[in-house]
């Protein structure tokens, strides 16, 4: 069954179709949330909340062809809510202390720290662009900002990440 057909079925309350959509998007959304929040348990919560909102709100979606953008927007909004609620928490503390057993592997710590050094908007744009492979236009729709802003966020972020991750990196030219 094509995705659009599945989504139409979900709209009618078909739980099997919903399970297929969950199967298709779940891991991708989980890692996106994890890349933004750097908290494995919170990422699981955010991911679950996102799907519940999709299930209850899909009836109101008119254009299902933009489902990918819509679900990512919900996820990103949930991540931003997480930041608001976690005002007093040091985001990524578990990464630094290595207390998050499900977090980045020791080999990925440098990547985690580099991503964490970006502000949350730039971090979100980076994850959506390079992990999920969304277009600038799609990210602009997800983040609710002009495409120029997304491009500029990505340029600056890439520069920062290069500085942090490519120190001592030898090109094999």
């Amino acid at each position, binding site marked *: 069954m094509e995705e659009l057909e599945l989504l139409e079925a979900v709209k009618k*309350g078909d*739980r099997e179709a*919903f*399970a297929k959509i*969950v*199967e298709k998007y*779940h*891991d991708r959304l*989980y*890692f996106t949330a*994890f*890349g933004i929040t750097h908290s*494995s348990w919170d990422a*699981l919560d955010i*991911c*679950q909340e996102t*799907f*519940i909102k999709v*299930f*209850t709100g899909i009836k109101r979606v008119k254009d299902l062809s933009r489902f990918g953008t819509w679900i990512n927007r919900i996820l990103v909004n949930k991540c931003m809510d997480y930041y608001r609620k976690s005002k007093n928490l040091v985001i990524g503390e578990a990464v630094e202390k290595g207390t998050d*057993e*499900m*977090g*980045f*592997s020791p*080999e*990925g710590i440098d*990547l*985690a720290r580099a*991503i964490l050094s970006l502000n949350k908007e730039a971090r979100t744009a*980076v*994850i959506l*662009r*390079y*992990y999920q*492979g969304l*277009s600038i236009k799609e990210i602009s729709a997800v983040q609710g900002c002009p495409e120029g802003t997304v491009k500029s966020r*990505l*340029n600056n972020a*890439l520069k920062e*990440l*290069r500085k942090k*991750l*490519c120190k001592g*990196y030898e*090109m094999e*030219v």
Partner: protein
Amino acid sequence: MSCRRFRDMIEAYIMGEISPSERELFERHMENCDSCMRELQESGYVIERIRNMEDWVNIGKEVLAMSKKEIGKRAVKRKWVPGKLFPAMAACFCMTVAVLACSILAFPSFAASIAPRFPLVKSMVEAREENDQLKQQVEEIEKENEVLKLEIKKIKDVEIVQVNTSDTVSEEERYTIQALVIDFVRAQYRGDVEWIRNACTQEFAKHAEELVKDKKGEVVFTQITNVAKEGDLYLVFVRLNDTSSEDDADYQENFELVKENGKFLVSFVGLDA
């Protein structure tokens, strides 16, 4: 095209978003420019690491599978509409109860008119009626107290509380009548039938023997009313205690007298508890 222009294209090139013609120009420049090539490789390295982020994260497949299962369960719960409505229904119910309770407490009359059989309303109405009755009784007692002015009076050798209920008789007549009544009671306890007979009207004198008291205790006068006059009758009540051990030791005698030829005579004596 300058290096800057090609560097701006690096991200789009890696993401596969430039046209074939631009791609050819871009690749040619990279082959001839080491610094641009370095930036391309570094950017490619960063983007590749993020793209493969899953490889750098420790999370078991079973955790992800569990999460998917949990979503399914929660979605089923969401479908159950009554469950969703329950908090709202509970809130409405609590609000109604609260409003009703406040109305009953604040406006019992209103509550009595809309829900007279409601147990709480019923008991409140009863309590209010009881309260009204008590209020009325208190008012009556207060009125009586205003009328009843008590004073200690010495009548012959007796000091007695006089209850002033009327002022229709002159003080001289009042004293005469009260003294007569006290002597009358003493005669009753003495068993002096003759004295009693002389103090009564001719008609009532026939009952003189019946008026004698068998009790032998000492009589203590506790209260006497001042004398009221109704028509030809003079009324006076005397309260006494004969100090006997009987239950009716403390009682009241109600006297009615008439004035015949300037002399007061007892025309009737009745007992009161």
